[in-house]
């Protein structure tokens, strides 16, 4: 396998075409999921079947890159078979690791496929040494994906006290809630991000032009009303514009995307092993553009040079057309 330059670049693939685009653009590692409720991007037309995973793994391995499979939702009561099958299929098809969140599934993977690396998904929301040590000691987890609620200082302090690799988000949509425990979308749609793998499922989303405005709804609930030329956002409840004390505002989170390209030196100094690009629900054009920009940046930093301008252009494809350093910079409130 090719050794990562500066930091390992872990990139999303919602389709086989996106996987190839990520590899061709310079991803060290690609993560994907199966076409069902076992992963947190269960959207129509997206994801892989077992044969496509085999082809993707072959494509990546032939170029010295890795493929991770996210089985990162939580099995429903009495319905664990789909999740077990997903872990088995990832192992059988040659994945380099599985990304898991549920302790039962972690236990199953550790016992059934002890040689398959296990990464702790962000959905597990493990953000302190006690929690991370528990997963390492009991299930042999090799890497933790840290929640998007920590400042750079907190990331550094945490990594100093854990004995496994840490992966952090570098680009993409933000989640403000405790990862894996958000039920806002479930209250409205009846389908859970944590067990069905869909936040704001597409079949519950509608957009309609109403006079000068475009109105988005999730189920029967209006989530936003955009004026002409105002940038739009995903129709998730946490990005809703809510009227509070008579004033419409983004109470939880503004429609804005994370871009940590400007603090990669700090993240490396903090002990981070890998950078995660969010966006398996996005197109192969997004994947190609973001991965190429981060590849160029990491290669430049490895040579001791400053980051090229390519990462600045990423603002145009970020959610809401705006980027932020989010919790890395401001700390959690």
């Amino acid at each position: 396998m090719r050794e990562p330059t500066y930091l390992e670049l872990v990139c999303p693939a919602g389709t086989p075409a996106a996987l190839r685009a990520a590899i061709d653009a310079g991803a060290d590692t690609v993560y994907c999921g199966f076409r069902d409720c076992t992963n947190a991007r269960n959207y129509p037309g997206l994801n892989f079947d077992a044969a496509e995973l085999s082809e993707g793994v072959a494509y990546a391995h032939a170029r010295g890159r890795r493929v991770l499979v996210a089985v990162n939702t939580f099995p429903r009561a009495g319905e664990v078979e789909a999740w077990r099958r997903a872990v088995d299929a990832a192992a059988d098809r040659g994945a380099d690791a599985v990304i898991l969140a549920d302790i039962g599934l972690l236990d199953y993977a550790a016992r059934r496929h002890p040689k398959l690396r296990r990464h702790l998904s962000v959905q597990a929301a493990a953000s302190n040494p006690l929690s991370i040590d528990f997963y390492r000691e009991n299930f042999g987890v090799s890497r933790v994906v840290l929640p998007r609620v920590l400042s750079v200082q907190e990331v550094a302090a945490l990594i100093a006290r854990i004995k496994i690799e840490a992966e952090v988000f570098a680009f993409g949509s933000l989640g403000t809630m405790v990862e894996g425990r958000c039920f806002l979308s479930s209250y409205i749609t009846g389908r859970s991000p944590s067990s069905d793998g869909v936040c704001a499922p597409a079949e519950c989303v509608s957009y309609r032009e109403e006079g000068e405005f475009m109105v988005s709804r999730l189920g029967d609930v209006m989530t936003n009303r955009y004026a002409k030329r105002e940038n739009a956002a995903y129709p998730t409840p946490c990005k809703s514009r809510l009227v509070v004390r008579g004033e419409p505002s983004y109470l939880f989170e503004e429609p804005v995307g994370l871009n940590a390209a400007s603090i990669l030196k700090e993240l490396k100094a903090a002990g981070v092993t890998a950078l995660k690009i969010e966006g398996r629900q996005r197109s192969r054009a997004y994947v190609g553009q973001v991965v190429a920009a981060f590849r160029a940046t990491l290669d430049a930093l490895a040579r001791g040079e400053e980051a090229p301008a390519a990462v600045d252009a990423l603002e145009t494809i970020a959610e809401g057309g705006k980027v932020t350093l989010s919790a890395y910079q401001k700390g959690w409130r």
Partner: protein
Amino acid sequence: MAGRKAMEEAEFPTILARALMAATPSPLVELGAAALLGRMRADHPDLFRALDESRRTAIRFELTDSSRRFLLRFGEQRPSLRLARADDPPADACVKGSLDALLALLEGRIDGDALFFTRALVVEGDAAAIVTLRNLLDRETISVLDEAASLFGPLKGFVRGAALRWEGRAERLGGFIRAAAGAEDRPRANDAAAAENQALRAEIEALKTRLSKLEARRRREEGQPA
């Protein structure tokens, strides 16, 4: 803007396509659309198998830079593409955007979510229908120009080349017209120099666009990512 760059690098004669759509009688436009869809069905069997397995869906496409409106139907029926009619029942969803944007989406050169965020693409109605179509298309490598030129059989190469040559001339002509229109607004004292300057700039821009297209074509022919 990255999205605009992706659209400019496209090797598709959008000026010619818009002109043809405006000048061609509706029955011929429908024949062309149906033939193009048939060609794509032959070249992309996985895509059409997935469309066939989808639920019954009708999506209306409204071009913001053309008066034509199209209706795409798929799922539990043979997919069809025809001009939308006033007495059509309401479609499940509607997509509005420029021809450039819709072609870039179809060919996977641009991110649909980014177009949506910036409102360059407007969607209405059943989001699941649009998300499904978008994700299925993104699995495929499609060149609309190649598909359209294939309809001419052995003349494919000639038609393709002629269309691109016509497009190149139209782009240059458009550049000169824009330059001339801009020159009219300038003070008479430096009219000549300013007009020449602007005409040259327009020509450079047209040549840059042309060069980008040729580069994209070369990369595609060499099997590199565009």
